[in-house]
């Protein structure tokens, strides 16, 4: 964990990382592995499992959206000064290329700004080995939504 993230957020992200990789069934099946966590930026490596194909061994775009929504949400947390619940307002995802099941992908996201309780995030998804661009995305998140104070929108 890099030191520029607020300590309370860093502790939450460490907890979230344990929970993401060990307890939660969706994220466990994606085998999320953090590569970089800094203030306003996050990079994770993920599996593209066969359970998410659209036909034969081609990964359905829906999995790319699931991955990007998840990492975008985590990226918002890295940018906050105090822990607040967040919720996705909207997402825009462009599917650039097909991915085959069994590949590993890298999702890198950055929180561009947090203004007036709105966080703006963008990112991309690439094949880990080849660097082939699979998808690009952008989203906005409401910061400080009603709900559990320690909640994370993932």
């Amino acid at each position, binding site marked *: 964990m890099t030191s520029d993230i607020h300590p309370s957020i860093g502790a939450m992200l460490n907890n979230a990382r344990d929970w993401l990789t060990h307890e*939660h*069934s*969706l994220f466990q*099946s994606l085998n999320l592995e953090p590569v970089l966590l800094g203030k306003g930026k996050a990079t994770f490596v993920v599996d593209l499992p*066969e*359970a*998410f*194909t*659209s*036909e*034969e061994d081609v990964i*359905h*775009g*829906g*999995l790319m*959206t*699931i*991955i*990007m*929504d*998840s990492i975008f949400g985590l990226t918002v947390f890295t940018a906050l000064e105090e822990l607040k*619940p967040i*919720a*996705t*307002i*909207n*997402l*825009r*995802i*462009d*599917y650039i290329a097909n991915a085959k099941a069994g590949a590993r992908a890298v999702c890198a996201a950055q929180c561009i700004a947090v203004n007036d309780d709105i966080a703006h995030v963008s990112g991309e998804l690439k094949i880990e080995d080849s660097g082939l661009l699979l998808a690009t995305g952008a989203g906005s998140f409401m910061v400080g939504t009603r*709900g*559990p104070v*320690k*909640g*994370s*929108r*993932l």
Partner: protein
Amino acid sequence: MNPAVAALIERSAIADWLGFSVQEDDGGLVYALAFDEIHIGNPLIRAIHGGVIAAFLEVAAQCEIAAALGPRAIVKTVNLDIDYLTSSRAQPMQARARITRMGRRLAFVEATGWQASEKKPVAKAQFRLRIGSAD
């Protein structure tokens, strides 16, 4: 069920993962996302993962195209925009998809998902899809 829709669901592993099903009423096809613990995004608030909702609406949009074009249809999503209008609950979700415009190579589809009432949509998404025929 419409054979083209059935074929699309049959070859789609993600449809199985979503617990995706289709029924028909007077208003057209109604798509369903089964509730499953694996669809939960945040266990603290017990909401369905936003990406799972988007994936569900995307499969619904693709089925709507398949129903219109037949079993030889090739459907590939180009991009999407989704708005999360209200928080979801740990319950099944239903959706309808409406073809806004279908050309020879491109289709525009809007899909809307709801839980308690169709009058209270949880999410609304626009899809642009590249279409063709295997013939």
